[in-house]
């Protein structure tokens, strides 16, 4: 456990040293705020709810989280520092989980910076905290699975941009998969919804913490980290 924490902390520090991470935070905070109040129809709905915020945030995640995860392994592959890290007395899976932890802590910090919204809203009037807590839990879970997919993709290439695009495609595909399926074959939508990042988020953000939704995100995370670890280990045999 110690090793994962040490790697995670180093990774977090390294993220805060990189321009792209700051850029992602600024874009996220700006966009989510702007979209929430302007296009989220907050003032028109006449309800004290953060619904609009969470919807915008998940969409932004598809673009911004791949930018955080893209460098995790691919950058170290490019510079060669991966060799030095891996020849320390560490298991490959510890390296992977440590890197995921670093990126996840970054996400937690970013979301903490949005705490101004629920605080302000609760001062405006009665804010139903169920959906707010659900929404944040959902964002953390969805973010965790996006970052895991990104981590996996970054073990496949030395090129950050390739890792970014692959992550964007995979996450985007599974975000919209039920909507896409529904467009072609309406009755398929509910079945395919089990695979959709968005459908599971909708359940949670209503304030209903169903184990099936939590298990979905954790399964995606486990699967992506496992594939990523195999991919990292494959250097030994090729």
């Amino acid at each position, binding site marked *: 456990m110690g090793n994962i924490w040490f790697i995670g902390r180093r990774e977090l*520090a*390294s993220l805060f040293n990189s321009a792209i991470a700051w850029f992602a935070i600024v874009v996220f905070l700006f966009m989510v705020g702007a979209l929430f109040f302007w296009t989220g129809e907050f003032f028109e709905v006449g309800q004290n709810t953060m619904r609009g915020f969470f919807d915008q945030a998940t969409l932004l995640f598809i673009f911004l989280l791949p930018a955080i995860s893209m460098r995790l392994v691919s950058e170290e592959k490019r510079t060669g520092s*991966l*060799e030095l890290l891996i*020849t320390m007395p560490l298991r490959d899976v510890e390296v992977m989980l440590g890197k995921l932890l670093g990126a996840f802590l970054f996400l937690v910090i970013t979301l903490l910076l949005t705490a101004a919204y629920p605080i302000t809203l609760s001062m405006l009037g009665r804010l139903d905290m169920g959906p707010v807590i659900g929404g944040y839990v959902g964002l953390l879970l969805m973010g965790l699975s996006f970052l895991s997919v990104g981590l996996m993709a970054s073990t496949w290439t030395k090129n950050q941009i390739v890792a970014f695009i692959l992550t964007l495609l995979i996450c985007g595909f599974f975000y919209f998969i039920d909507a896409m399926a529904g467009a072609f074959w309406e009755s398929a939508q509910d079945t395919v919804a089990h695979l959709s990042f968005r459908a599971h988020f909708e359940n949670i953000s209503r304030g209903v913490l169903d184990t099936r939704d939590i298990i979905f995100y954790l399964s995606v995370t486990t699967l992506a980290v496992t594939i990523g670890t195999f991919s990292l280990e494959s250097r*030994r045999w090729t």
Partner: protein
Amino acid sequence: MSAATVEAAGVTESPADKAMIEVRDLRKFYGSFEALKGISFRVGRGEIVGFLGPNGAGKTTTMKILTGYISATSGWFGVAGFDGFDNSLDVRRNIGYLPENAPLYPDMGIIEYLNFVCQIRRIPVGKRKARIDAMVETVGLTSMIKKNIGELSKGYRQRVGLAQALIHEPPVLILDEPTSGLDPNQIVEIRKLIKDLGKEHTIILSTHNLPEVQMTCSRMIIISNGTKVADGTADAIQAQHADTQSLLITARVSEEARAAMSDTITSIPSVLSAELLQRDGERVQFRVSGSGGDELAEAVYSTAKEHSWSLIELRRDVMDLEKIFHKLTQY
């Protein structure tokens, strides 16, 4: 290095006092390309072994296998008494590794980075500062201490690389081209550092610089095309690969004797050829090739005495290590 600090750094001493590094018939395929074709060697405690070979000979591949970065296709190796395949983590705990080009994290500060290595290497919190200070002192980084690794020149980055390899006081050090890309002054300093380290650590270093091996290593292993072609001290390899004995004789000889000198030397039974190298007034130098070991020198000496040449120098002309290297590694 005392035994107490070794334990404190989480480094386990080998159960038996065997060879610190033992490699048996190691093979490595990259796809269908056979990079290592069955390499075996042993490195004893306290040895500094130079790994020599042309580019692509298999030096780096061997080092990557020893440090657990890649796996061998077949064969066996052990480090500090631990099995390289079954106890990879223990092997890595006992090794300090400096990969080629010292790939470090450019965005980290020197101290910040060394502290991270201390964490991973399980050096107790209370001892970290002392270890880091000692390393900074040893490798000569004191004046750079405030800088980020990315701001350092190649030579200083290499020193940070050495510091991270040494910080847990590993019994075995593996250094891949520790002096490549350094300026001559830095090379001298790093070589001196390696020699000093050799007193306490078992070291393997790779290089394609021959003088470096002669200066810093107690033994050399020459690898070519995935195979070990020579293993021993520089002297032993030279002796082994010199086909014929060669002597250099310098003497002061009068004008009239000089004309016959070449023929006189050639007429010694064990001499195969004599070659005039220099003539400077009365002073002449010949290279004499022949067989018979010490007798050759004795025969040449008695001939010189017999003909009253004033002998200035008579010495064995060893085959140039560079020539041997070239002969062994061309394919």
